């Protein structure tokens, strides 16, 4: 139970620190900024685990995890899942979610109902779909999955390896990859 208590408390601290960083130290590389905050919190969390008693001074004997290493491992897993599956995904959804942005554009539209042409032209508060796709291309260029050569997009060796992985995942799920 110590694992659950410490990981939960540190997840709240993590979210508060991320909010603080995003508001006071805005960066173009927010995901990297979040990763640094996560690593800092992870180090503090491990230190806290070693510094505190097994029962945290309040837990009953039946709530103590044995062996102790399992408690530490569970705490690291819970906290990491909270970051990679929780905070980081929340950020991804808010900052890059295509469907979510369409819903918000509909919410912010001057009239109650709008057509496809309006949504295409005014996607993301007027930036448009070309901006949206440019952002994705820039990101996968920066991650070295693709290159831009003479107005052509070329898959790198790293990109080809990951593309094979995704194609395989599609086939496992019984879906036809795009072609």
């Amino acid at each position, binding site marked *: *139970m110590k694992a659950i208590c410490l990981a939960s408390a540190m997840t709240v601290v993590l979210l508060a620190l991320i909010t603080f960083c995003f508001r006071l130290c805005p960066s173009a590389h927010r995901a990297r900024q979040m990763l640094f905050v996560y690593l800092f919190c992870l180090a503090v969390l491990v230190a806290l685990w070693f510094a505190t008693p097994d029962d945290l001074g309040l837990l009953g004997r039946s709530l103590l995890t044995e062996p102790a290493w399992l408690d530490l491992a569970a705490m690291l897993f819970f906290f990491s899942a909270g970051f990679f599956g929780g905070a980081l995904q929340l950020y991804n959804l808010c900052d890059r979610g*295509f469907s979510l942005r369409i819903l918000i554009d509909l919410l912010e539209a001057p009239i109650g109902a709008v057509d496809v042409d309006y949504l295409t032209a005014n996607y993301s508060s007027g930036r448009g779909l070309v901006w949206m796709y440019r952002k994705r291309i820039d990101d996968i260029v920066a991650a070295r999955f693709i290159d831009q050569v003479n107005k052509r997009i070329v*898959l790198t060796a790293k990109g080809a390896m990951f593309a094979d992985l995704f194609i395989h995942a*599609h086939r496992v799920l019984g879906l036809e990859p795009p072609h």
Partner: protein
Amino acid sequence: MTSSPTLIALAAATSWFLVFFFAHVGGLRAGSENARWLLISYAACFLGAVVTAILLTAWHHGMQAVILAAMMAALTSACLFALYVPALYAVLTSLSVQTMMLLRHRGGALPEAELYDRFASRKIMEQRLATLLASGYVAPDGRSYRLTHRGRAIAKFFRPIKILWNLGPGG
């Protein structure tokens, strides 16, 4: 040697998550609707994990250790699900992933214009609106679309987070 309640809980959660994974993939392959099948199969396996952890712990360690085992099993299962869903949706819906797969399928290179025509056009907006329509987030209004109560609730929930985190319009 008797396993600790935590070990029992972790083993139960992991085993049931594997059951969920195979059930989910099997359902998708059989043509089930993804989001609905994902939730139904996960809810069943989550219950399975918690009940298994409770029963095994009660049998080996008595009732006093059941709370710890149940909480550990529930949280482990939830964490595995939280890691699985984003990976699944990246494979299923990410435009970056689809771009890379398309490039691989078409020999590793394509003109920029062709990619923009495919992924930044009216057609992709129509496809996504069809998904939102099927999920009940938008409703048709003549040739236009409007938000349903469900879609409005989602948009209103996430907009303050975007403002709090200073993210700008994004998308």
